[in-house]
């Protein structure tokens, strides 16, 4: 019984949360219509429609507080069009707040904690605002007073990130047509299998005919096609348009711009690009950080902008497009660009020599820990997440991040991501007769490792790479393989970068980068911190996928065995 109810609540949240989000988007649109002029009626009608559905759904689930908030919002909607100026602004602010509250309450239903108090407080405020607005024309004083009251009430939509439920237990919506397609493909597969079974039967009875070989060939080709197509279609089920992510920034930027008294316009391009929902949900935080940074450091004041001959209203562009089977997400602003001299100065202050670095390299320094936070001076940025963390989130999704800036013209962050997390590009390497995979996003370089470009100081093994020293570790030793070969004897080094840390893995062999299907490991292997999943190679062999963040971390503290000379003696015994 309880289970049934839980599943009903889940359905309710799955269905209603997107409506609340949609209403939020419509509110932004309404605000746009008001400022730009135009017919607000169809937008208001759509908003009321959405609210009505939310009210109905939640009343049906016995979630009265949600229904009450939706009802109050409907009332405000009916009024807001008839008001002018300040009154309208006040009511529309309430609409935004109420909509946020709806989002929070709907998600709270999932954990059974719909807070009636915050709902009732809101309903009361809505009623007062409407009465107040009707009875006494709002003077600037009363608005002031009211906004103090508003400030005293904890803002319900503090962290919109809680609105996402994409932890792998989310629900996917599939169009009926797609289900039909999938069923049809499954049917074709079964037919193919039956036909193959018939051929197999003849083969087993020794009645194999020459034509059977051709037939089998055909059947296998056909089966290959249907199964591939089925996989392709199923992968699509995981995808959602990236606009669901981008649209959340409409509200975010509006509030941010208002807070700072700036005029910023959000432009969205390629919103219909389909991306894995797991990626979409994990991209929110990194994008928030980048957008905040753009507003805090990139975008100048209106005066400064006009004096530089730029339009007073700044632009932030979120764009996505498919490129070579991957998604390229750009976050661009037309602000002042990256201050290379300031970045170099910060780096120098930390004891880094930047004289030999190219402009591009200096730009990339912002992804290094310490540096990114050092540059974040305003209270806007610096919420504890540095760009180095952003970079490692992107990497853990199998992607790469880069930045380009032109002084005075703006900054562009480019994220190169896989379309789905279950497909990744990876490099396969071997050590001591075992095979492993490394997500390609972490790989800086591969090289031959010779004794002449390695050295050890106080049991720390270093590989020289592009004039730099990278701490290295024998992959066999790190991963606990049973071989006896020594680090010095491995012919190749793979240079990894995770966040701002670099490390080199010494391996026996590696093969080119290939697409792999990522399979999660059972929870009983959760203690294996260095392994992020597994993949099955063409020959049916299972290969662990390394978690490079952990591998690089371990590399940075790895030491050579107690006495290297002893180890070398052991190795020589092994030869005999």
């Amino acid at each position, binding site marked *: 019984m309880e289970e049934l109810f839980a599943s009903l609540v889940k359905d309710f949240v799955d269905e209603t949360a997107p409506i609340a989000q949609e209403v939020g988007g419509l509110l932004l649109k309404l605000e746009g219509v008001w400022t730009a002029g135009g017919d607000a009626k169809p937008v208001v009608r759509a908003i009321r429609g959405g609210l009505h559905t939310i009210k109905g759904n939640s009343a049906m689930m016995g979630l009265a507080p949600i229904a009450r908030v939706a009802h109050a919002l409907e009332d405000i909607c009916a009024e807001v069009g008839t008001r002018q100026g300040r009154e309208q602004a006040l009511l529309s602010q309430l609409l935004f707040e109420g909509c946020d509250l709806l989002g929070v309450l709907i998600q709270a239903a999932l954990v059974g904690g719909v807070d009636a108090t915050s709902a009732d407080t809101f309903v009361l405020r809505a009623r007062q605002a409407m009465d107040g607005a009707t009875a006494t024309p709002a003077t600037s004083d009363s608005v002031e007073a009211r906004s103090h009251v508003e400030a005293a009430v904890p803002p319900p939509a503090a962290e919109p990130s809680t609105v996402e439920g994409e932890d792998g237990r989310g629900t996917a919506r599939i169009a009926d047509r797609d289900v039909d397609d999938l069923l049809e493909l499954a049917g074709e597969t079964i037919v193919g299998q039956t036909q193959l079974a018939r051929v197999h039967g003849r083969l087993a009875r020794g009645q194999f005919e020459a034509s059977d070989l051709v037939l089998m060939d055909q059947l296998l080709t056909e089966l290959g096609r249907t199964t591939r197509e089925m996989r392709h279609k199923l992968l699509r089920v995981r995808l959602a348009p990236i606009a669901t992510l981008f649209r959340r920034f409409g509200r975010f930027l509006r509030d941010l711009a208002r807070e700072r008294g700036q005029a910023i316009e959000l432009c969205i391009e390629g919103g219909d690009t389909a991306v894995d929902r797991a990626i979409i949900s994990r991209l929110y935080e990194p994008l928030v950080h980048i957008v905040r940074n753009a507003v805090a450091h990139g975008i100048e004041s209106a005066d400064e902008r006009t004096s530089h001959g730029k339009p007073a209203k700044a632009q932030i562009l979120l764009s996505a497009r498919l490129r070579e089977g991957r998604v390229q997400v750009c976050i661009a602003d037309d602000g002042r660009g990256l201050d290379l001299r300031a970045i170099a100065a910060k780096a120098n202050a930390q004891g880094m020599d930047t004289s030999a670095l190219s402009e591009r390299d200096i730009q990339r320094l912002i992804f290094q820990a310490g540096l990114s936070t050092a540059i974040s001076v305003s209270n806007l940025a610096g919420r504890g997440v540095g760009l180095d963390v952003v970079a490692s989130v992107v990497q853990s999704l199998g992607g790469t991040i880069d930045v380009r800036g032109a002084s005075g013209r703006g900054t562009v962050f480019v994220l190169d991501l896989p379309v789905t997390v279950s497909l990744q590009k990876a490099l396969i390497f071997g050590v001591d007769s075992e095979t492993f995979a490394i997500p390609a996003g972490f790989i800086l370089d591969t090289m031959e490792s010779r004794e002449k470009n390695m050295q050890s100081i106080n049991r720390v093994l270093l590989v020289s790479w592009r004039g730099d020293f990278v701490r290295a570790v024998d992959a066999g030793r790190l991963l606990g393989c049973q071989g006896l070969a020594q680090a010095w004897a491995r012919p190749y080094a793979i240079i990894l970068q995770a966040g701002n840390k670099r490390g080199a893995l010494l391996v026996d062999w590696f093969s080119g980068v290939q697409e792999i299907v990522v399979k999660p490991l059972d929870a009983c292997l959760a*203690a294996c911190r260095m*392994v992020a999943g597994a993949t099955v190679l063409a020959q049916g062999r299972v290969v662990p996928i390394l978690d490079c963040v952990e591998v690089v971390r371990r590399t940075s503290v790895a030491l050579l065995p107690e006495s290297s000379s002893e180890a070398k003696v052991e190795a020589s015994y092994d030869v005999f």
Partner: protein
Amino acid sequence: MSSEANTEPLLAFADALLASSEREPGRAAGEIRQYVTFFLRDDEIGIPILQCREIVRALAITRVPEAPDHVRGVVNLRGRVLPAVDTRKCLGYDAATPTVRSRLLVVEVAGRAFALLVDRVARILKLAAADITTPPEPAKVRAAIGVARDGESMIYLTDAERILRPEPAAEVQPTRSDEA
């Protein structure tokens, strides 16, 4: 007791049974339950057939760095990656290298699938509640919840969940290697 049963019919039988009676309506006390039995060293151990998905030859097991002691690694079962559990380790025996007779007993517990590595698969046993007695104390096989007799030999009954559950007493109990 026939120990060298051909496992292929057993596999088919198990599959058919699973397909036909995934959810049996309420069991009566005297009702017959079926167990798949396997050997660890010389001990025959049974788990309910309803927990078994299939039995496959010991596939290549890929070691996973830093895996817990009782997990030998992962195997590829038709594209699914399953943990290969060292049943001997789980039940307090010494580890052993797989032989030609070794099998992977694929079980499903709470929606998670595991491959139990066993020395060999023996047979399917039908047991009524009356055939099962409580195991002697201390139980020879850890996690045993019942014992059935077949002539001179004993069959220890447990279930997949108990095999997988880590036992806090694991370190205290001596391994069974000395009793071979």
